[in-house]
């Protein structure tokens, strides 16, 4: 039964999209129902997998592998075998669960809209792409799924977005399209280089990682590793919206429908971090180490810069975008540290930021649905008409600014524990982000939910029953990780340990 679960998870949404294609356009409510099923089943399966996951193992589990494409003479006289191979390890598992959760809740959070059928078709295609990115064990497959997210995103922003949707959709498309170039170049270069060592070419991540791990120094030169890592890192900077390549993210968040903002902030932009961990740290640890200072500096710049910019944003969604950038800067710092604490903190922060972004964008979407705006100055005193939403918004903001007992804190402190071990000075500058986060989030909260309620905001309705589901689930998870971080830590611990031992040796 476990045999094909991963395939099911990846392709059920796509199947849903296909089925949706045959639903008559006029059918009301049906698209959402189908989308719900098509995202709920993967969620269910993901949790079944989680239940059966053996976190004491550091390798891939539930693997499915089939040879898919053979390319003769791809490298010297060797045949390149591209596999359709899926698998989960401790690193992928949290991302899988995150994806399952956010995408399902995203559907739940979607309000009725124009052209709902198409919306959900594109949405489900996007979901398949996202699952694929985290489950693919083959670099080619990964790339394929990564590209697969581009097209639906273009339409999701372009059709259902805000007043600058066309421009922003294009920006998203081309920016990330360019990022995938770097990813592809580095992937294939890695595969070919690994072939020099092993004698067979494959794009399987695990075998490449092993090849790199045991390669003698002269077989794969340091220069090569450094060069490839730079290319990859550049792509990651774009994928993950790091300064100075971050400008697509605020625009995307500002212009996307709130469901899509949830998915972008919650899952899509985390792909970059996943690549950084999986490929950067997993395959090229020496290069990460070599460029550690650069990475750390970029990380700290992101933390501080994005926080400062967030401080003066007028729109909640842009503020949250910059907030996410700032948080992901912490991930870079943690990765640059290249020690157990830093890496674990990085993963924690990625997942935490995903959950928090999902929640925050959901809430802001709910506020927007009621008030028609996300401009901070146009809101005020929301605690009165909608105490529950305001309460959850506060909880999310607090989680985001790193309140202990919620996921943000443990992530932050782990990352800084790593960071201070390696880069005390830079990390000290980075802690400014902790203060600034409090400033911009509380300031925005103060102006949004506190203070006197303006007349036009009176009498707005509070959260509906269905809206409790995402809110409660998100908050519960955020608190769960905050209170009992082992639930996440045990998953990733072994994988990270295996990375760290490789750096040591």
């Amino acid at each position, binding site marked *: 039964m476990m045999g094909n679960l991963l395939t099911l998870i990846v392709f059920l949404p796509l199947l849903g999209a296909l089925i949706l294609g045959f639903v008559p356009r006029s059918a009301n409510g049906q698209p959402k129902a189908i989308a719900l099923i098509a995202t709920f089943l993967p969620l269910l399966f993901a949790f079944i997998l989680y239940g059966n996951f053996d976190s004491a193992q550091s390798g891939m589990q539930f693997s499915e592998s089939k040879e*898919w*494409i*053979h*390319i*003769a*003479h*791809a*490298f*010297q*006289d060797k045949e*390149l075998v591209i596999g359709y191979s899926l698998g989960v390890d401790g690193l992928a598992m949290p991302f899988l669960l995150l994806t399952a959760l956010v995408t399902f809740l995203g559907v739940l959070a979607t309000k009725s809209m124009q052209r709902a059928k*198409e919306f959900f078709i594109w949405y489900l295609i996007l979901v398949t792409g996202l699952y694929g990115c985290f489950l693919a064990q083959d670099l*080619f497959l990964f*790339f*394929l*799924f990564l*590209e*697969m997210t*581009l*097209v639906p995103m*273009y*339409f999701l922003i*372009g*059709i259902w977005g805000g007043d600058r949707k*066309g421009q922003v*959709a*294009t920006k998203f*498309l*081309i920016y990330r*399209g*360019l990022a*995938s*170039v*770097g990813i*592809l*170049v580095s992937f*294939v*270069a890695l595969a*070919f280089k690994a072939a020099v060592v092993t004698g067979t070419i494959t794009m399987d991540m695990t075998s490449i990682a092993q090849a790199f791990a045991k390669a003698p120094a002269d077989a794969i030169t340091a220069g090569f590793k450094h060069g490839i890592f730079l*290319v990859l890192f550049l792509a990651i900077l774009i994928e993950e919206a790091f300064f100075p390549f971050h400008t697509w993210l605020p625009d995307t968040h500002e212009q996307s429908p709130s469901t899509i903002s949830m998915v972008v902030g919650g899952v899509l932009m985390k792909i970059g971090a996943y690549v950084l961990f999986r490929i950067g740290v997993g395959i090229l640890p020496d290069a990460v180490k070599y460029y550690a200072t650069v990475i750390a500096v970029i990380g700290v710049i992101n933390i501080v810069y994005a926080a400062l910019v967030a401080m003066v944003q007028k729109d909640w969604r842009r503020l949250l975008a910059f907030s996410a950038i700032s948080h992901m800067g912490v991930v870079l710092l943690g990765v640059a540290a290249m020690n157990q604490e830093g890496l674990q903190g990085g993963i924690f922060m990625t997942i935490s930021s995903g959950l928090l972004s999902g929640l925050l964008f959901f809430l802001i979407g709910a506020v927007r649905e009621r008030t028609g705006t996300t401009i901070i100055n146009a809101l005020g005193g929301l605690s009165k008409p909608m105490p529950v939403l305001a309460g959850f918004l506060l909880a999310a903001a607090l989680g985001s600014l790193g309140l202990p007992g919620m996921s943000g804190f443990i992530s932050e402190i782990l990352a800084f524990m790593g960071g201070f071990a390696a880069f005390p000075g830079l990390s000290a500058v980075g802690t400014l982000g902790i203060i600034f986060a409090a400033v911009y989030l509380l300031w925005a909260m103060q102006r949004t939910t506190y203070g006197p309620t303006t007349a036009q905001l009176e009498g707005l309705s509070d959260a509906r029953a269905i809206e409790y589901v995402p809110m409660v689930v998100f908050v519960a998870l955020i608190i769960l990780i905050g209170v009992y971080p082992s639930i996440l830590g045990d998953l990733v611990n072994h994988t990270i340990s295996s990375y760290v031992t490789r750096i040591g040796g």
Partner: protein
Amino acid sequence: MNAMNGLTQLHFSDLWHVMAPEMILVIGGFLILVLDLFMSKESSRRLSPQLGILFLIAAFVLTIRNFGIVADNAAAGGDMINLSNMLYVLDDFGNVFKLLFTAGTAVVLLMSIDFFKHNLEVKVAEYTYLMLFATVGAMVMASALDLITLFVGLELLSISSYVLVAMRRNHAKSTEGAMKYLVIGSVASAMALYGMSFLYGVTGQTNLAMGASTMLQLWDQFKPVLVLGFLLMLVGFGVKVALVPFHQWAPDTYEGAGNPVTSFLAVVSKAAGFALILRVFLWGFSRVFGDIYIYLVILAALTMVIGNVAALTQKNIKRLLAYSSVAQAGYLLIPLATLGKGSSIDNIWLSLGQTVFYLVAYLFMTMGAFAVLTVVTRQAGNETLEAFRGLWRRSPFLAVSMAVFTLSMAGMPLTAGFVGKFYIFLGTINTEMYWLGGLLFATSAIAFYYYFGVLKAIFLKDSSVETHEKIQVPASIGVTIAIGLIGTIVLGVYPDAMMKLLNGLHWFGQ
């Protein structure tokens, strides 16, 4: 030896053995020509394209037969099957291209059936056999090893094409397009010939196979003149396949020609050009390629960049596709260009596989796109992007098909275009020309802008056509689209079959 010393005698059986597809097409062409004289105008109009397709299918089948012949010969360890002292050869390189040409032309003729209905001025029989002759020219370009023969084949294709472009002779744009094509084309021919003359001058041979060894000996002594000859030929051929900066005729000619002819130019003619380039440069220059590949790299890079950038602001869909096809020529040049750095024999097989795979993918997606375009622009009455506005409402089938073709051209995964690009990309990494591979995909990313512009028109905007009437798709066009669709998706999802096929080929007879 007697007085006929040195004269090779050709028997029909030899000819048939080697040139059966070409011969069947020539015969077919003449048959249609003759039948046209005896038949009523109406029945000729109706029958000619069908006949043409029939002959093309026959040629296709015969080409498949040739694969067997080559395989048998290779298994027996025989020399390359050839005519007239390697003037004309039978190998899988040629066969593959012949399949491409016959299939491509057949699809073009299929599309033409609809074209004839709406362009009564076009003379169907002439059109049909010109297509067949043009295909023969293309086949010769793929199979000849002799400069003279290659040149004749090239001109057979070119001259037929000029006429085909001008076929809508009451259509000012058609004749203008033909004129531009002809002027640039013949200047290019002259350039290529000028280059060939130098090549001939040094080697004393018009035969590539024999000239190559002479060339290797004389390379150092005569490098300037040989490189000059090579480059002049490159310029000449570059015009034919529309490499930047020799591409400017293409948008105008593509726009002027009727849709089937345009797709013929974009697919068959371009593929033939690449067959020619590969034949000449692989056979003539393979051993000195390290010295000259850099010019191909320059052209490939230029073509990818300029082709894609120029398309960004293009609103006319046919011109857009023209620029797109220019850009694709850039991609197609890469496999050959990378050979300069990785000159092992495996690399040659890889490069050939890449080129052919991409051409096949390109065939499916381009044909499909032109078929959709034909219907859509006709209904809208113009050829701008506006014609596609809200297509998803008017015809979901056309909308989805066009989306698939466009995404394939843009190089999105699970389409033939993506696999093709990836395949080509492998070569650049293989030879450590990372930047070129990067450029390949970077320009594709830039190209998203205009490809998605098409998709935007289809899906994002509402129809501007007053009547939201459904578009009726004629059967022949429908079949064309379906072929394109299936090909694009199958090659995208399961390229392995094609890869295996390519891998099993005896490219040059061995």
